[in-house]
């Protein structure tokens, strides 16, 4: 079977390293025009993926950051009633024209855009449990109706929808059925090396090797509340480079531990050992 040309659209972008299964999932989502739901440990680059897709395909990106108070309706449009009520007192505006009080939300903007865009719905699980269900129909049909103006906004080009979730809440089944799902696994040392090299192309081999060795050994320790992740590693390597730490000190002393361990309890747990390096040396490398 030969793959159709439509399918192989996304191949990563220069500043974002992807695994093959992830690229496939992205391409399936684009080909089938379904939302792509991305889950994974914090710091594995869920949000960056959408930016990479936009960059790789040369499309504009619209980001909708979800907060605990976000309601589905806000993504479609907001009807500024208070402004209209206020304007009605002065009579200098035509308040019978409701249109000027309708402001499109992020989803609405993505639909109304004259060209195809990438829509990132970031951290969908932050919102209320019912939030994803409220968007089902809109994401399915890519259109919605504004009763106030008797208008229907429908997508000119179906946006490429990327949704990220931290698994803080269970997402409703009906919503999940419509998505393509991918779980970003924690990168293995080889992929990680590639990722680090994207950020620091000139990094010394020895430094990188020692840093990765230490990092993966730290991740082996199960007693941490939050294990260090990719973004912490990147920061830490930056610190190592800037700090000019000698290579043989990296594994034995673990300088700048604070950039890797963010929780106070983890930091205390780790620093309360006399020889941090010896401690992690007890854990074998993967």
């Amino acid at each position, binding site marked *: 079977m030969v793959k159709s040309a439509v*399918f192989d659209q996304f191949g990563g972008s220069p500043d974002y390293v992807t695994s093959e299964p992830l690229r496939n999932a992205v391409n399936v989502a684009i080909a089938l025009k379904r939302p792509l739901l991305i889950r994974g440990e914090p710091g594995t680059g869920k949000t960056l993926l959408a930016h990479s897709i936009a960059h790789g395909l040369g499309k504009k990106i619209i980001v909708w950051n979800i907060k605990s108070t976000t309601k589905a309706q806000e993504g479609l449009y907001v009807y500024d009633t208070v402004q209209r009520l206020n304007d009605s*007192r002065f009579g200098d505006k035509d308040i019978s024209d409701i249109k000027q009080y309708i402001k499109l939300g992020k989803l609405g903007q993505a639909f109304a855009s004259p060209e195809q865009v990438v829509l990132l719905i970031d951290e969908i699980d932050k919102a209320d449990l019912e939030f994803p269900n409220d968007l089902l129909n809109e994401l399915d049909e890519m259109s919605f109706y504004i009763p106030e103006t008797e208008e229907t906004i429908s997508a000119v080009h179906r946006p490429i929808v990327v949704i990220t979730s931290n*698994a803080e809440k269970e997402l409703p089944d009906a919503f999940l059925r419509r998505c393509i*799902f991918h*779980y970003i696994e924690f990168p293995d040392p080889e992929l990680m090396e590639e990722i680090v090299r994207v950020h620091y192309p000139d990094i010394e081999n020895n430094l990188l090797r020692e840093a990765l060795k230490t990092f993966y050994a730290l991740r082996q320790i199960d007693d941490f509340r939050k294990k260090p992740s990719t973004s912490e590693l990147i920061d830490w390597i930056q610190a190592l480079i800037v700090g000019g730490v000698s290579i043989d000190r990296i594994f034995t002393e673990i300088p700048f531990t604070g950039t890797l361990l963010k929780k106070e309890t983890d930091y205390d747990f780790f620093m309360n050992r006399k020889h941090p390096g010896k401690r992690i040396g007890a854990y*074998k490398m993967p």
Partner: protein
Amino acid sequence: MFTDFFYTLRKRKVPVSITEWMTLMEALSQGCISNLDEFYHLARAILVKSETYYDQYDVAFGEYFKGIETPAEITEQVLEWLKDPTNRMVLTAEERALFESMDFDELLRELEKRLKEQTEQHDGGGYWIGRGGTSPFGHSGYHPAGIRIGGESGGRHAIQIARERRFRDYRSDLTLDVRQIKVGLRGLRQLSRIGPEDELDLDRTIDATSRNAGEIELVWTRSRKNAAKVLLLMDVGGSMEPFARLCSRLFSAAHSSTHFKDFQYFYFHNCIYDSLYQDALLYQAVSTNHLLRILEPDYKVILVGDARMATSELTEKYGAIDFYERNEIPGIVWLKRIAQHFTHGVWLNPEELYYWNHPTVLMIAKLFPMFPLTIDGLGQAVKRLTVNK
């Protein structure tokens, strides 16, 4: 096409629906894949919606596509393994002869068997799957006909990936970490309008403005917040020692869940008598009667314990395992009082289900609906705590 695969997945308890199956068919008809490896990832992306089911998916995939493995592929896999210089280094002529002694199918069957038996990471040694050592399974080992698991990747086939079962740790019926417990506890909510008035009540604003002859009059209302109050009672020490870590995770999840209106916790040893304790070392006692007086019946009570003890500890006067308790009232009566005082209560039991067939466990399960301390069990318990009886 592959309809049996659909049923194999369902048999393995992967929640796949017709909608998703049709999506997969649509993808296949668009020519999205060119080999089995890609099919593995494609089908997983479309059919499986949570990493907790990846493992079951792997099992089902391995089961259904077992026959697809051609002998050619198998030799290729083994040859590839042999090509690795670190392996060739240790292979002597005799060992090469040994390599003939075990055929791949036999090896795979054995691997599956050991995968089932093995529960933790392993390095060295001669039997378990792990690193180093002389077992045929794992990587960087010295068995001539071994199967590499993990280690250097490259050119692995879908079946092998499926067989690796890397996602075993994500299964929801096995493990629980703090975050997962928090997710479970989030379900525990009871929304009501409390707190400051910070939400615009549009209807009443319009109404008030009209009455005010068009002069704007904003009316605010309280937003809906979680009013659930939680009381956590945990068994510590003795037979609960093996579960100490699991319980501490439950505790830290509940404690850091900021969405409860109130969270109270106390400890006990084996059974509840006249006193509960504010610390796990059981020093600071609080009278159980006092708590029943000050805590309103609408606290959701979560008891955690193995509920296993000598029958006398539960049913008899002075039955408490700790002599200083000198309980005048048997533990079962105290438990009954708690069950009657609070409208909602559940018991979470960290023990495996087959240990539950024990007189005291059965007695306690009659007072409090009992659930296993797993993600699924916690989910059911939370549901039980939120429904009105």
